[in-house]
């Protein structure tokens, strides 16, 4: 794609951990993407922001254990608005046994601690075209 990929990045719900979300935002910028950083938001507001910003990708960062309850909600709300083409990614501390269910509910991928930015970026580029 010739234009930059647009990513809306949020810390999911009230999760206080910000290092990962900010680090990934910066690194995706350095990969040539445009990253709109929202800070902490709940699914409804994240989806509204994705609509307004014309996002290609929604990134959710969560280390606080709310991934099962809030993550799939984002996908569901996007689908309700007819925006199932937006890629939804999660990252942070998410127990491996929770990942299959998240994927089943439409989370495209989950990136845990120590994830490499090249993997995240190439996953995004592979899906968004």
């Amino acid at each position, binding site marked *: 794609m010739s*234009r*930059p990929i647009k990513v809306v990045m949020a810390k999911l719900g009230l999760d206080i951990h910000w290092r990962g979300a900010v680090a990934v*935002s*910066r690194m*995706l*910028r*350095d*990969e*040539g*993407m*445009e*990253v*709109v*950083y*929202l*800070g*902490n*938001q709940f699914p409804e*507001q994240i989806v*509204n*922001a994705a*609509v*307004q*910003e*014309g996002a290609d990708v929604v990134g959710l960062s969560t280390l606080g254990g709310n991934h099962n309850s809030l993550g799939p909600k984002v996908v569901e709300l996007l689908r309700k*608005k*007819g*925006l199932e083409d937006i890629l939804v990614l999660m990252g942070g501390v998410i127990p491996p046994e929770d990942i299959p269910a998240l994927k089943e509910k439409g989370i495209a991928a989950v990136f845990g601690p120590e994830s490499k930015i090249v993997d995240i970026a190439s996953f995004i580029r592979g899906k968004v075209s």
Partner: protein
Amino acid sequence: MVALGRALKEVENQTPLGYEIIKHTVTKKGNAHVVGVTGPPGVGKSTLTGKLCRFWADMGLSVGVICVDPTSPFKGGALLGDRIRMQELAKLPNVFIKSLATRGNVGGIAASTGDIVQVMDAFGKDIIIVETVGVGQVEFDVMDVADTVVLVTVPGLGDTIQTLKAGIMEVAAVYVVNQADRPGADESVSDLQMMIEESAASTWKPSVLKTVAIDNDGTEQLLDEVERHKEYLKETCLWVGNRRERNIKQLFKVIQNSFKQQLNEYIETNGELQKLVSQVGEGKLDPHSAAEDIIANLIRKTPLGGN
């Protein structure tokens, strides 16, 4: 909201559909009051924008916000962080926020800003706020999209204001010294007031206000002043006159951008002209003579309507 979101995405990315949208919305614009918020980096533009927006939204108006942040010159990416200062707006259904990266445009806003304003306007926004990137001395393109420009500064930026001076006197309708909780605010206010008096050319006398955006202090006065400027524009017919001028200016900007692009493509793909280019590269021909030859070769007038 979904329809506007989709439309703006096309316009932002300058797709063929985006051009269609611009064509079809051009006659529907002209109602919204477009307010520009500009000033040096980190002075509180986003925080102030959020507060103003909140007032208007609470009055039941439909508000559009366009926040521009710089694209990194190295990798072409951008971190668009203005929304983080406007989190209280996220739950308001009548506020629509669009973040734009400059994508190489100089002048303090993105090249697509004017088009995005137009489409928001056509979609019925009452007020559209445009927050520029943090500006230095020469980035005042916000004038070309906004009816009312608010220039924000902070105490202790006296020197910066001096360097801005040449440009700002013609730009801003309202001056704000934000972060007035910090020392030196009154000095900054009187400095600005002095400069305004020196350049008393227009019938509009800009005021200088003090605000503490984080505490929502002085922001209501700012709102009043912005509204007062709108009344002034309407009473003096500048509301219409300025828009006319802006439309024409936009035309010339589009011509120049599009011309530059087509020109580069033409030269790159034309073998004859490439010969001249490489002669200049090798230092055998001076750039002035080469440019003259190339331009003479280019300008063949075609009648309007045909190409």
